[in-house]
């Protein structure tokens, strides 16, 4: 393992410890942090697509799909360790089918097609009222963890722990993936797709693999959101929810696997504190933060942090 990889591993574990510490010290933040990590996992998938220069405005589809799969399965099978793979499987399977079509398109067409499909799912959730209860949503029963029924307090901790483990796992996986030929091919697609084809690498398959992976990650995020809020509504699939994921990706920066999580924490905490500070103008604060990031820190929070470390003469360890 290279020195840099070791350093990143330590940083990731330290971040996980900080999250646990904050959740222990400020009980109400545990919920917000769990949601933030879930969204971070979903954005990690978007990061893969961003590497290929593609922005999906519809990944809330996979978050909602898995969340609803969990909500429908939970009454019969209230086991977190089964619901998570189920959600990932459902999202991954649908991602594969949808992916076969959307990877033929690039840029705005790719983004808009994804958006359209997520809105189709949103409408399905609303229209099949008898099944889904429409906008009122479905409530999940108490979830078991490895067969044990936990109290609300312990269940909150268990969900946070599962989320952190998944975040660490997926983070490590995406980091390895991006350095693998499949990952490098994604960056190559962004630079010049034709050259990739000349080298004999099918660009569509490269993108399809990334797309399915991103759907699986969004699915895991969706199940965690469902287990945390224990109430799913079609709003999860609405286009603003997809926009939120892209917002987080931009806020965090696409340069590293830390970006999505930094972005997710930044987004959720900004939103929570802005809402606490000014209940009727929190959107403005959120907008100003995003504008600030776009104008002054195009690399996102991760880019800001890295350049700050680089500028410091003693910061050689982070280089």
């Amino acid at each position: 393992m290279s020195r840099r990889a070791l350093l990143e591993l330590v940083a990731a574990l330290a971040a996980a410890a900080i999250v646990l510490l904050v959740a222990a010290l400020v009980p109400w933040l545990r919920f917000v942090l769990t949601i933030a990590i879930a969204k971070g996992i979903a954005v990690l998938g978007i990061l893969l697509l961003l590497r290929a220069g593609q922005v999906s405005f519809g990944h809330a589809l996979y978050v909602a799909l898995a969340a609803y799969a969990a909500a429908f399965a939970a009454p019969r099978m209230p086991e977190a360790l089964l619901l998570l793979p189920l959600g990932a499987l459902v999202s991954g399977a649908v991602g594969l089918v949808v992916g076969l079509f959307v990877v033929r398109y690039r840029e705005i067409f790719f983004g808009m097609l994804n958006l359209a499909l997520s809105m189709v799912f949103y409408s399905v959730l609303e229209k099949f009222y008898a099944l889904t209860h429409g906008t009122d949503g479905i409530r999940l029963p108490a979830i078991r963890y490895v067969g044990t029924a936990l109290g609300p307090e312990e269940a909150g901790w268990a969900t946070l722990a599962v989320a952190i483990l998944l975040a660490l796992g997926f983070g490590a996986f995406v980091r390895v993936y991006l350095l693998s030929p499949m990952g490098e091919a994604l960056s190559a697609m962004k630079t010049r797709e034709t050259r990739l084809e000349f080298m004999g690498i099918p660009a569509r398959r490269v993108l399809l693999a990334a797309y399915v992976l991103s759907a699986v990650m969004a699915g895991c995020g969706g199940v965690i959101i469902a287990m945390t809020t224990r109430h799913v509504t079609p709003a999860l699939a609405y286009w603003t929810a997809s926009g939120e994921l892209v917002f987080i990706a931009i806020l965090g920066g696409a340069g590293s696997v830390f970006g999505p999580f930094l972005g997710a924490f930044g987004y959720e905490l900004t939103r929570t504190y802005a809402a606490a500070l000014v209940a009727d103008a929190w959107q403005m604060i959120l907008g100003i933060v995003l504008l600030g990031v776009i104008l002054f820190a195009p690399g996102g929070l991760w880019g800001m942090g890295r350049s700050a470390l680089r500028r410091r003469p003693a910061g050689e360890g982070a280089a």
Partner: protein
Amino acid sequence: MAGDVRFAPGSLTRRAALGALGVGSLALAGRSVQAQAAKPSELKVGIATYLSGPASVFGVPGRQAAEMLFDEINAEGGIAGVKVRPIFVDEGPGVDHFVGEYRRLVQSENVNIIFSAISSADCLACTPLADELKRPTLLWDCGTQRIFEDARYQYAVRTQGNATPEVLAALLYVLRAKPDFRSIAVVNQDYAWGRDSWAIWKTAMDTLKPGVRVAAEFFPRFGATDFSTEVTRLLALRPDVILTTSWGGDLDAFIRQSAERRLFERSTFVMPLAESSLERVGKTLPAGVIVGGRGDHWFGHPSPKDPALLARFTENYRKRFSTWPIYPTHHMAQAVFAMKAGYEKAIKAKGGGWPTDAELAAAFQGLEFPSLTGTIKIREDGQGLEDQLIGTTVHTDKYPFPVLTDMVVFKAADITTPVGQKSLDWLKTLSPDMPGKMPAPVPYRG
């Protein structure tokens, strides 16, 4: 906001620790879930309402009413000598954000009681949380009847009616006012309330007056601005009655476009929520339209229990906000009055001592408290019994908008689903002579 938060003993270290972590000045530490029995220096009330999005047409009047009534309570010295302070949270961003906000209100802001919410989804999500976090919660405006029919809660009660009596009252009114109608069309917003209210109406109508033909069912997109398709179809179909339980901008647009194309001249309109649109649409809404306001809410209520109270509220609200109070302001008033009555009942039961959270929650069960127009009783299942007022619009010179005449105030107990029954099952057991038993209509008196 952070500056004036009172910290519970023992939580300062948490705050210090958090400050060290850099979360900083905004971090608000909270007490753990334990029932305090000491009299607090102030009574904090978390209020969930829509401050953004289309439902802010209800949310903002609700907040205004709360601000005004909290000021009035404080001017009188507070509740049992404790001043009250509202903390508003926006329901706009959706359920997952609201669930986080609810936790923040309880665990960080450390509110004593919560008023929640306008959205039925938010109410469905937060009632189990109320029991889990053990914080008394008043459901102040949401409509779904599912909450107390599907489960029982210790810490949450509803200080208003629900969708079933609200829709049933309008149906009974139509059955009496226009007993020979043969066909009906519905134009409801495409979301839970639009679907639920039509299911309630249809089930009750099929029981009370079987054989009515449903000419068309339209569920235009929530937030739609163009109803030309629906109006064209309705002009061609000529149903005797057109029902719409829409509200806000959707309803305003539908009224304007229907009036422009003279649809009102062909069919009788039933609008169980139009009381909240009267001032905005003005006399575009013709006379002869059947209108309700989700309860017995109207500033011109024919027989308020305390006429001075209603008049004073209406006058003060108009003076302060330059607009007429609409039903969400009544619902907010009910939550405020219920809170006051609940505290007084709990304090009395404890012989003057300050109640714990559990004692306060227990006091709300079976509580009777005044509304602006009558009295509301909270049943043993937590559901509030609220009368329903339905009337027909009429134009007068005194107001620049339609007012109500031929008003019927339905008694809550007659039209609310009994404890332990599900609405859609109960509606199938209604007896066909029900419309004949309703109270006599009262005409408008200038």
